[in-house]
């Protein structure tokens, strides 16, 4: 499988008045193959959304990204704004967390999707309209030509998310970034949206960059998983291997904290402490202060992301600990 998206040593710094105030990403390396679904997990503030936004260069004004993001052979960080606009929505598109606020409330849903199609595919109004109806149908919306004329507030959350997906896939992108696409939805609808995404992925063969805090969800959906902690990838591997034999203590802690795996009647295990926020941090492993397996070396020397088995890598000095 050739790499569709290759993120190398991505660093994002936030600064104010010329001073760096936070280092949000500290060298993230990730890749998504053609037609592959890669999940990025981690707790709030670990940098997963920021990684997704970096791919589209949608970072806030006070953020600066460095590193390399190669997509279909081009470095996205080096594109001109004009070239970037051609990629956005057409080759790479995104499904957002809250469908309710991602549509402009004063335009009919169909019109907004049609604008994207007209913009990127060079279609006339009529042809684009037909394509919108067809696409709305393909995401499982009943009566697509009726839905097309409705305003965002007239659709339910689940239907809006379907429409959002229609907008994202109408130009047949090769990469779809899904940032917590089901978080705002209730559980049954969330399952349907995931099923829909998987079905579309099978049909159209786009790669998915799936951002979530929910390991269960990512485990269901993705071929590969990358676990992010404090702006770095701490473990990555094929879904099955990673979930069955997590090597990084942080991944283990996340898995233990899942409600489905807990002993009924006992309190849910949690990961004690919070993500460190210091600017340059201690020299050692960022997880050391919260780690049950911590040894002296962890505080001195930051462990690199090292392969532990085929395609499975972990950034821990004690990856081999039982």
């Amino acid at each position, binding site marked *: 499988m050739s790499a569709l998206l290759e993120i190398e040593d991505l660093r994002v710094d936030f600064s104010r008045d010329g001073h760096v105030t936070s280092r949000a990403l500290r060298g993230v390396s990730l890749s998504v193959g053609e037609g592959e679904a890669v999940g990025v997990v981690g707790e709030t503030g670990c940098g997963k959304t920021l990684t997704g936004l970096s791919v*589209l260069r949608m970072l806030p004004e006070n953020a600066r990204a460095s590193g390399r993001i190669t997509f279909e052979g081009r470095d996205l960080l080096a594109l001109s704004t004009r070239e970037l*606009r051609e990629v956005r929505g057409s080759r790479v*598109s995104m499904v*957002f967390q809250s469908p309710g606020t991602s549509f402009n*409330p004063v335009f009919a849903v169909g019109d907004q999707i049609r604008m*994207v199609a007209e913009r990127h595919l060079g279609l006339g109004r009529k042809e684009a309209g037909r394509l919108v109806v067809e696409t709305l*149908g393909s995401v499982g919306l009943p009566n697509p030509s009726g839905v097309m004329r409705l*305003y965002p507030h007239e659709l339910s959350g689940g239907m809006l998310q379907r429409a959002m997906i229609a907008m994202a896939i109408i130009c047949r992108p090769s990469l779809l970034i899904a940032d917590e696409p089901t978080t705002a939805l209730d559980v049954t609808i969330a399952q349907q949206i995931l099923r829909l995404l998987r079905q579309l992925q099978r*049909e159209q063969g786009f790669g998915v960059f799936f951002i979530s805090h929910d390991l269960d969800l990512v485990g269901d959906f993705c071929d590969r998983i990358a676990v992010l902690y404090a702006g770095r990838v701490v473990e990555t591997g094929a879904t099955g291997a990673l979930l069955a034999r997590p090597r990084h203590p942080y991944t283990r802690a996340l898995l233990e904290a899942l409600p489905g795996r807990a002993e009924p009647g006992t309190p849910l295990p949690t990961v004690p402490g919070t993500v460190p926020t210091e600017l340059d941090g201690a020299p050692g492993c960022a997880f050391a202060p919260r780690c049950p397996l911590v040894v002296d070396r962890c505080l001195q020397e930051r462990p690199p992301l090292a392969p532990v088995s085929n395609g499975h890598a972990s950034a821990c000095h004690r990856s081999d600990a039982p």
Partner: protein
Amino acid sequence: MSVTIDSPDQLPAPYRSTGATSRAFRVLRRKPSALLGGGIIVFIAFVALAAPVLAPYPAQGRGLADVPARDLPPSSLHWFGTDHLGRDVLSRVIFGARPALGVSLAVVVLAVLVGVPLGMIAGYRGGWLDEALMRVTDIFLAFPPLLLAMVISALLGASLLHAAIALVISWWPWYARLARTVTQSLKHEPFIDAARVFGVREPLILTRHVLRNATTPILVQATVDAGTVILAVGALAFLGLAAQPPTPDWGLMVADGRTTVITEWWISMFPGLAIFTLVLGFNLLGDVLRDVLDPRSAGR
């Protein structure tokens, strides 16, 4: 491909049309005051257009004097009486609708055309451009608008056109401010980011996504302002800084009758009532537009 429905209750209620026209009718049905506001404006606009036909004494509406018939109280011949020069007050009130509507619309439209683009660019771009533009508006806003208009109007020379120019100069900063505020709050809405993610060009984001969302507050403000402008033009005319005699201008007519308002009350009262009615109409209309223009208010 098979079509699936999330659940039966997810099917949208009847696929009803929610165009502005149907919303307008729904609002009109629910709010009788809407009908009144719209009715007043339509009525006065009709009067302005058909003035030569409606006025019982068209020549006097244009200012021709008939001195022997002066200061007559309201009667079946002169419904609103006659003024100091024997002109029919009703005819002059009817003709007065023209400058009143014309000036108020022209001032508001021009002020919007100048202020809104500047405010939107300032709000969207931010930075030094924003600072510079806002300091300029600060200078204008530091003076009471009517005072500023009086000074400008006095400098340019008293005429209706100059009064209108003066009012545009003192009014546009308010629209720049409003447009800037609205743009700033819209700029960080997720749907603006979403538009960018889908490759929409910045100018198109401004003119389509931002402007369309800013239209409602701006139009509502403009409608209410149209009433305020009429008051301001009336005040300027009253002070002799706008229309000059023998123009049938409501403000001028009120000023004309002020010395004899106790004895010949009709000379000031009827043009005064006309000003009151038009301002009321604009205010009621502004209220209604808010509901009609916002698709989200349709169901409420």
